[in-house]
């Protein structure tokens, strides 16, 4: 679930924007170079952008909370295209979702970039990279990357919510409460994301091994 427009106090909204824009800038710079060197990677970039948009829009209601969870898709994008590019794609997907479905928002864009785009991409990619280093198979590494990216996204979102909404409670307690209440839906979703990320990566590796160079599936 993305933080909606209007929830964050103005100082926090601005505060999240600063690191988010730094990551986005870095992602765009990387992406610019890629598009210049490999004009043929445009379709893949567009495709992954659309893909993140769709995946992170599948709403699964959280019982009793009146809010929704969803998978992220950014770990997969990061594994296939690298984490920086994935940040840019995640950011764009978030912006478009805000515009078309009021899912997320403009002032909360920075916060959402940090959780889903930055957190999902870097943690997902990091776990994948580490697992590959430790000798895990492609499918397993990618799957765990997906799982970790998904969970971390929600951990960060919960922290952002806690910071904004903790009131008189401690931030930690609020965080735990928020994070905990997402778990019943988010654990199954994270497991779905595990299978799904692993499935797609293995599928692409098997069917289009020739693409892997362009796809930058790094070992």
């Amino acid at each position, binding site marked *: 679930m993305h933080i909606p427009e209007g*929830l964050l106090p103005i100082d926090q909204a601005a505060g999240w924007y600063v690191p988010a824009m730094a990551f986005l800038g870095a992602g765009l710079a990387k992406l610019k170079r890629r598009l210049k060197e490999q004009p043929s990677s445009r379709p893949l970039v567009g495709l992954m952008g659309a893909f993140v948009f769709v995946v992170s829009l599948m709403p699964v209601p959280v019982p009793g909370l009146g809010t929704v969870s969803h998978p992220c898709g950014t770990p997969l994008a990061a594994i296939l295209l690298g984490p920086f590019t994935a940040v840019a794609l995640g950011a764009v997907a978030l912006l478009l979702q805000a515009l078309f479905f009021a899912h997320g928002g403009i002032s909360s864009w920075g916060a959402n970039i940090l959780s889903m785009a930055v957190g999902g991409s870097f943690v997902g990619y990091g776990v994948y990279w580490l697992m590959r280093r430790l000798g895990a198979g492609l499918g397993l590494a990618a799957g765990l990357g997906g799982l970790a990216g998904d969970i971390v996204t929600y951990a960060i979102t919960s922290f952002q919510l806690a910071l904004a909404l903790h009131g008189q409670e401690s931030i930690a307690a609020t965080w735990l409460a928020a994070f905990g209440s997402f778990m019943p839906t988010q654990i199954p979703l994270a497991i779905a994301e595990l299978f799904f990320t692993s499935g797609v990566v293995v599928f692409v590796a098997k069917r289009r091994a020739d693409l892997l160079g362009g796809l930058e599936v790094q070992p």
Partner: protein
Amino acid sequence: MSGAHHNSDGFAWSSSFLARIDPRVKLAAVAGFLCVNLLARTALVPAVIAAAMVLLMLASRAPYRRQLLMIAFPSTFAIFVVASQTVFHGGSVFATLGPFDLHRDGMLHGLFLSLRIVAGGLVVVVLGVSTPLNRLCLALKWFRAPATFVEVIQLTYRYLFDMRAEFFRMRDAQRSRLGWSSARHGLASSRMLGGALFLDVYERGLRSAEAMRCRGAGPVAAGSLPRLSRLDLGAALASAALVMVLAVAALMAVGP
């Protein structure tokens, strides 16, 4: 049918006066409204914003079902906020629910936040549904957004429609060979569809990128924003005035 995507107003209805307002004006107004919305410490400002947006939506005579659907996300979230604030925010306890104390002030604060969420959501919805993405991108360029950023927006948007078209095409192909005639077949078919969708959209995209390159690789449907019309200037003035008034109200914390 690699074209379905390019219909740039797939998400925006185009017949209203709202759609005719220059996207630069709309972007600036939206930024103003969202800022004052966040600055607000009383319910007055978000209430005025929400009311103004509802009026705009009604005046635009857009399909109401769509509008209701669009505001569903922020609205459901509002419930979450009220619940969490009632528990966390503090103030006098008016009831207990299991391990939780329910606070009156918290509930009021939660309601205030919900109002802000709905008002902010409405602002974004009005922008989103009245502005074809192509025009929005032109405005972003005018505001000096990085070219790569704008390009990724356009690519993503385009492939969104590509994916949708390819999805339906493939599902029709499967259906006509009985791929969805039972739950078991449906499961197998959906798995195949997921995998094939990815590669198919990619293949097609690659080919149409090649085709573009062959014909010069310029921007598709290039265009530029015309000079601001009288309508645009009017809209700019009106929204600037409203934002100004609301900003004063917000800073002075007028109202309940």
